[in-house]
């Protein structure tokens, strides 16, 4: 047998979108040249991997088998790194991760809390394979689940196994995947379709993109298994056009799978045939909704329809259709390979398995994480996320994207699963998590999400189209100091009307950010309305900047940096802010070294 070329060291260089934008392609080039210079090119291999997860420290590089983790590497670091670590075997300390408040770096990736506290199932190949090489996916037991299914399981058995595992849709609604497949299989009509929903439109979310970029074959294999189970020969993936790298890597994966006969006719020598087409979406948030997505694939306007008949009966082109999220599809191969029992041991009573979250906002370790269901928010924020930037106080975490809710400090020990999040007034959604600190204004947060949702409402249903707009106007007035006594009650009333009167998930969940912030931060709304104040110091119309006499040293730094010349004062004497010219940009606050600038 021909052996694959062996290298003594593999440099796993992250090539997710975040790291590419921080220069990982250029680094690869320089690294290659440096290896050549030392004649190491036959001993050391550079591997471009998918997203490693700790995006805050990008670009990331891991040297294996030493398991040495390097972060924020630059082209300039490469000559030194190659000579020291790769040639002489002395890992470079200054490029390693040092935990906050500690002096000594943690050299090994597996010892860093951010990585060691995660459970990788959907992201099982993270940092281990080159997503553009199908052989590396196969080496990690790839396509063996589909081989098992095609050679030893009847479609009904596959459905039974997935049902038994308790796997639920990872796109947000959390419907039992196996049950969905069963409905579709039993639908009378033909042909049947399977679709992968990769229309990830939530602000700050990048889980689905990262999976497509980092392990596209895992999604293809999941879809193959689903297609076999429901009896489909044609699949589609609906992915945003704004995800060029994901589309590129997925296209390469499709091409390689076809070359190996893993897509097309007679897959793995059986009678089963299946193929997948890529449909690029135009970026409308509503097209993540199943019926709008299918309308868009058909070439119609991306609008939802009333679902008195399920898509599993009449979906795409009115034919039985199974639509699952990227993460759901990627979960299927391990469920089949290890069995339902193994899978159902992970997670909670009602929510099995793991979930991938984008952890963003005022958090130290911004990035992509995978955790078992049932983990607490506290563990996610402090053990994995490393806590709040600048060690400020935690205020709220928004889960589930723009239509999720904001949960306060008192709920930090809430176990994360489908039911508990809904009970707390939020949702699992597709896996967005935005962390907010004490300097975040909850009225402003509600305003931001309403602004997003009012532009993304497709306009089909009046309550959603007009209602969200009306809610936005009320909250906007509040942040301008024009709030009225009855505003909170009107907001609540509108929220229930919109939830009740809208067709699709967008409208039904759009009031969540407002309802949850009123529920947990009502006081903040009241201060905005009654006192015309913004306690967090965010809403510009309600704040003013002034200089604390006792603290100002007259260093002139604020005056030099003020973009509108609103600060006057001589050197070494007290400065003052002219409130008529001040545009409240906050530059003085950031530049003052003596904490003499105060917001009120």
């Amino acid at each position, binding site marked *: *047998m*021909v*052996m*694959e*070329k*062996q*290298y*003594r*060291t*593999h440099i*796993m260089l992250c090539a997710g979108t975040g790291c590419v934008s921080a220069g990982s392609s250029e680094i690869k080039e320089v690294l290659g040249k440096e290896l050549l210079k030392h*004649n190491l090119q*036959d*001993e050391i291999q550079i*591997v471009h991997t998918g997203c490693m997860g700790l995006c805050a420290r990008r670009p990331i590089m891991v040297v*294996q*088998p*030493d*398991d040495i983790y390097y972060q924020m590497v630059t082209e300039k670091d490469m000559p030194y790194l190659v000579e020291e670590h*790769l*040639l*002489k*075997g*002395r890992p470079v300390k200054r490029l390693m991760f040092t935990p906050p408040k500690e002096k000594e770096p943690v050299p090994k990736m*597996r010892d860093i809390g951010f990585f060691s506290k995660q459970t990788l199932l959907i992201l099982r190949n993270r*940092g*281990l*394979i080159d997503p553009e090489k199908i*052989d*590396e996916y*196969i*080496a*990690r*037991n*790839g*396509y*063996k689940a589909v*081989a098992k299914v*095609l*050679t030893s399981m009847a479609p009904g058995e596959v459905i039974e196994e997935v049902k038994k595992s308790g796997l639920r849709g990872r796109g947000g609604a959390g419907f039992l995947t196996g049950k969905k497949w069963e409905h579709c299989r039993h639908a009378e009509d033909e042909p049947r379709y399977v679709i992968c929903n990769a229309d990830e439109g939530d602000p700050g979310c990048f889980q689905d993109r990262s999976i497509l970029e980092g392990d596209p074959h895992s999604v293809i294999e999941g879809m193959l298994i689903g297609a076999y189970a429901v009896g489909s020969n044609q699949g589609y993936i609906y992915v945003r056009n704004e995800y060029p790298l994901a589309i590129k890597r997925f296209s390469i994966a499709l091409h390689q799978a076809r*070359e*190996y*006969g*893993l897509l097309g006719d*007679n897959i*793995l*020598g059986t009678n089963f045939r299946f193929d997948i087409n890529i449909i690029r979406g135009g970026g409308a948030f509503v097209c993540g909704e199943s019926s709008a997505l299918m309308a868009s694939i058909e070439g119609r306007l991306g609008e939802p329809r009333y679902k008195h008949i399920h898509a599993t009966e009449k979906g795409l082109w009115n034919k039985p259709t199974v639509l699952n999220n990227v993460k759901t599809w990627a979960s299927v191969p391990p469920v089949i390979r290890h069995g339902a029992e193994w899978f159902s041991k992970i997670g909670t009573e009602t929510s099995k398995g793991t979930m991938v979250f984008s952890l963003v906002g005022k958090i130290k370790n911004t990035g992509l994480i995978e955790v078992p269901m049932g983990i607490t928010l506290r563990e996610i924020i402090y053990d994995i996320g490393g806590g709040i930037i600048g060690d400020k106080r935690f205020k709220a975490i928004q889960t589930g994207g723009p239509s999720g809710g904001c949960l306060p400090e008192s709920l930090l020990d809430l176990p994360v699963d489908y039911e508990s999040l809904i009970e707390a007034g939020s949702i699992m959604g597709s896996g967005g998590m935005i962390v907010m600190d004490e300097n975040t204004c909850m009225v402003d947060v509600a305003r931001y999400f309403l602004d997003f949702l009012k532009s993304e409402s497709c306009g089909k249903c009046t309550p959603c189209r007009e209602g969200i707009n009306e809610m936005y106007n009320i909250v906007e007035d509040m942040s301008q100091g024009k709030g009225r006594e009855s505003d909170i009650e009107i907001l609540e009333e509108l929220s229930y009307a919109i939830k009740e009167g809208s067709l699709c998930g967008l409208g039904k969940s759009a009031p969540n950010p407002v309802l949850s912030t009123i529920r947990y931060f009502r006081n903040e709304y009241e201060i905005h309305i009654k006192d015309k104040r913004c306690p967090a110091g965010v809403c510009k119309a309600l704040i003013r900047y002034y200089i604390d006499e006792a603290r100002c040293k007259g260093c002139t730094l604020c005056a030099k940096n003020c973009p509108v010349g609103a600060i006057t004062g001589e050197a070494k004497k007290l400065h003052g802010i002219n409130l008529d010219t001040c545009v409240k940009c906050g530059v003085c606050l950031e530049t003052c070294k003596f904490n003499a600038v105060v917001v009120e």
Partner: protein
Amino acid sequence: MPNLKPEDLEKISERMKGIVDLRKGEFSAKVTVHMGTCGIAAGARKVMSSLISIVEEKGVKDVVITTSGCAGLCSREPMATVELKGETPVKYVDLNGEKIKRIFIEHVIGKKIVAAHALAMGSERVS
């Protein structure tokens, strides 16, 4: 390789096994070639390339080849340390391309220490 059969997946895995195992840090033996300036001057690069070629020649997949800095005994360079999983590391001295090949075959594959080139058992403690 057009139109795979189920058993072909196993073949591909087998061919690629060493590569992914290495990335996961799974191995049964580890050979460290000491590559300080002294080691390189004494011919450690050659020891390294012979070592890599014998690994490839023998098709051994779960052995990690790595480098480290000067081992502190510059007069006996090139040096290498062989560590079988769960056993005490053994240091070899005054190496060249031929000697390291013998050590690889007899010690790493054959599990028998090559006393002729060995200096000592054990490693310095790292505090």
